[in-house]
């Protein structure tokens, strides 16, 4: 879609490409390819974070005053798309895209001065304490309780689906601070926790694809200084909602989809079938076209959104559309991947991450991540708001609430 770019954007793209050629090592991109979880292991993702930080490119979405790049939205789209297509690892969003913006908007001067440079440099590794076993999509029903005790909160309860809690040294969490009869949206506060605090235990949850990516975290009289609260007591729900809106239009996925498609095309070309390869099979070729045109449309939707945002227009519920279609296209691709494997889909490797596994694997690098990716991709239509909730949102924008 570069035909739609101005010359200065083309120049920027070339600068990004040159940087990638120089700094994205084969080792890093191989490990990314072999990553079957949503987020890569820190030894991959964090390594890339540091490289980008050294370049000053780690936080394109941040204001320049805090260390952002000052790029236009289109440049941000180009950067996101080029890095993903080149096979760079995804960065952990918990610091840069979640707690960072919250601290910028609601944090005290001391909190900003302390945390923001550390997030930028990757000195802290953050995890998110939002979901609980009883409250998945219905976040406001959370039960983890923080009771004031002098200059501390004492936390009891449990959080779940906590990505990389076992790697993180910091957590931001929504906890219930109100009394029993506080309206449920008003009794929630936003706290920052040290993961080394006494009373925190972590239980791994293996995903359907056997990855250890998420966890359940238990809090047993965990003490958190009141100074680690962001914003006012009871303001937590407003902060969480701000973050959701901040993310609107912020998730650019077509580059990753295109990278995945290219991996599958290589797999199809490298998988023999009779005298030819799997891509010669007309049914397979058609399935590729179906996916490819879906990506074409999503890519152009992203660009249209960027163009609208850049001219100050409101693109509407389009972030729901983009999340929904991204997840569906990914699932269609992982299906196709399994189909390409044929009998080899029987093979299972328990070791994670795959790039650290057995030196002589049963399947080659192209085939190896396919089945775990397919299984883990089931979660794409669940996390970050299920597809059903995304459609509810789109329908509400289209129809209003009609009962």
């Amino acid at each position, binding site marked *: 879609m570069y035909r*739609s770019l101005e010359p200065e954007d083309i120049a920027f793209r070339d600068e990004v490409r040159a940087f990638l050629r120089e700094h994205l090592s084969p080792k890093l991109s191989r490990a990314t390819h072999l990553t079957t979880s949503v987020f890569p292991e820190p030894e991959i993702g964090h390594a890339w974070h540091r490289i980008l930080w050294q370049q000053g490119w780690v936080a394109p979405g941040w204001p320049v005053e805090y260390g952002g790049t000052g790029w236009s939205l289109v440049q941000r789209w180009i950067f996101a798309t080029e890095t993903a297509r080149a096979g760079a690892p995804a960065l952990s969003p918990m610091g840069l895209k979640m707690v960072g913006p919250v601290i910028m908007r609601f944090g005290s001067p001391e909190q900003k001065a302390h945390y923001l440079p550390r997030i930028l440099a990757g000195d802290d590794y953050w995890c998110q304490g939002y979901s609980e076993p009883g409250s998945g999509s219905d976040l406001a029903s959370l039960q983890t309780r923080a009771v004031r005790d002098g200059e501390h909160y004492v936390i009891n309860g449990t959080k779940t689906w906590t990505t990389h809690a076992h790697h993180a040294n910091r957590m931001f969490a929504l906890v219930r601070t109100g009394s029993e009869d506080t309206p449920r949206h008003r009794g929630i506060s936003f706290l920052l926790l040290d993961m080394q605090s006494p009373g925190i235990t972590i239980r791994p949850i293996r995903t359907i694809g056997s990855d250890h990516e998420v966890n359940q975290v238990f809090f047993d009289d965990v003490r958190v200084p009141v100074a680690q609260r962001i914003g006012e007591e009871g303001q937590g729900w407003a902060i969480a909602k701000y973050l959701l809106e901040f993310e609107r239009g912020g998730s650019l996925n077509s580059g990753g989809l295109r990278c995945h498609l290219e991996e599958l095309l290589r797999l199809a070309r490298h998988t023999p079938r009779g005298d030819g390869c799997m891509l010669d099979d007309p049914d397979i070729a058609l399935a590729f076209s179906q996916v490819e045109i879906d990506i074409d449309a999503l890519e152009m939707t992203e660009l249209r959104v960027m163009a609208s945002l850049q001219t100050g227009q409101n693109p509407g519920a389009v972030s729901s559309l983009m999340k929904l279609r991204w997840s569906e296209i990914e699932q269609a691709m992982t299906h196709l991947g399994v189909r390409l494997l044929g009998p080899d889909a029987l093979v299972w490797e328990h070791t994670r991450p795959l790039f650290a596994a057995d030196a002589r694997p049963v399947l080659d690098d192209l085939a190896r991540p396919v089945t775990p990716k397919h299984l883990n991709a089931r979660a794409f239509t669940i996390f970050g708001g299920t597809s059903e909730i995304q459609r509810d949102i*789109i329908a509400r924008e289209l*129809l209003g609430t009609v009962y």
Partner: protein
Amino acid sequence: MNLQLTSEQQMLRESAARWVAERGRPAQGAVTVGPVGARWREMADMGWLAMTLPERDGGLGQGVAEACVLAEALGAGPVVEPYLPAVVLAGGLLAAGGSDAQRQRWLAALASGETLVVPATSERAAGHDIGLTATRAARQGTGWVLDGDKTAVAAGDIAQAWIVAARADESTIAFFLIERGTAGVTPRDFPSIDGAGACALSLRGVRLDDSARLPGATRAAFGQVNDQALLVACAESVGAMDTLVKATVEYTKQRIQFGRPLAANQVLRHRMADMSIATEEARSITLGAILALQDAEGSGNALARTRAAAAARAKVGMAARRVAEEAVQLHGGMGVTEELTIGVYLRRQMALDAMLGPAEWHLRRHAQLRGARDGGSEDRNVSLAGT
């Protein structure tokens, strides 16, 4: 970024939308009587017929982007006047491959709405694959003799002339402009599914001077014009989808069943969400393909151009059909009658498929056009072990 409409395009969009709102009417029964029907003449007066024709032929020299802006407005109507076959296809073919004499004789008259020329390229055994054309053009002296049958010639019932594709030899498809009344040419008129008209053509020993041939209308030239037509059809479909989504939203909000509006049903709400998503995606891929066509004008990369057009028409054709069918379903009993215009949009989508090929056919073409290079990123510095 040039994703926004220029101010000229914006004006075109607004004036077309205004005209369609006032003058567009549901296509029921025959729409035009002769090529100089009132609405067709108005479209000519607005400059729309001349818009994409070359300046040297009395046109305004605009491109496929402008044709798509207009077509999107027409699709919202729906307006089923023969803009696509006459201006985009026949006009495009004449401009790209007509002789000076042909261009002088036909293009200005086409632009002014005085005469109508339409392509006759489909055959029953060829479907939409011009490579399978069986109509033969045999050399005879300095002229030609044509034999064969053409089907589904949109607006062929009211055209003064047809541009007929015929096989000149094993590897050559030639295009001939044949005027109504030429000996051996028998049109058979019929109404078309979108409420307009069409004809089939029987060609039996049709003798033509060499001057009837469009000298520059190669298969490559046809391919380029056809790709433009696919995008114009996409834009028209997007306009129709917009109207259908809006109409369905309105209907389900006011229609009460079991004591509450239909739109209170979560299942129907999600279906409308999907209709709206499909419309946005259709708009996106159409825009992307317009950019690809503009790009190919510079690069001359016909494969990329044709693949982008096939991708767009595959996706939009599928989406438009689904949205139209969903609109019918959500209008319930009323949707399946001629009492509402909802069904007219569905029929018009079917007509576009009949003229240019259904979505499934374009998807298969897209797969067949996947080249050896395609899918390999030029900038990827990845080394994967074991591959």
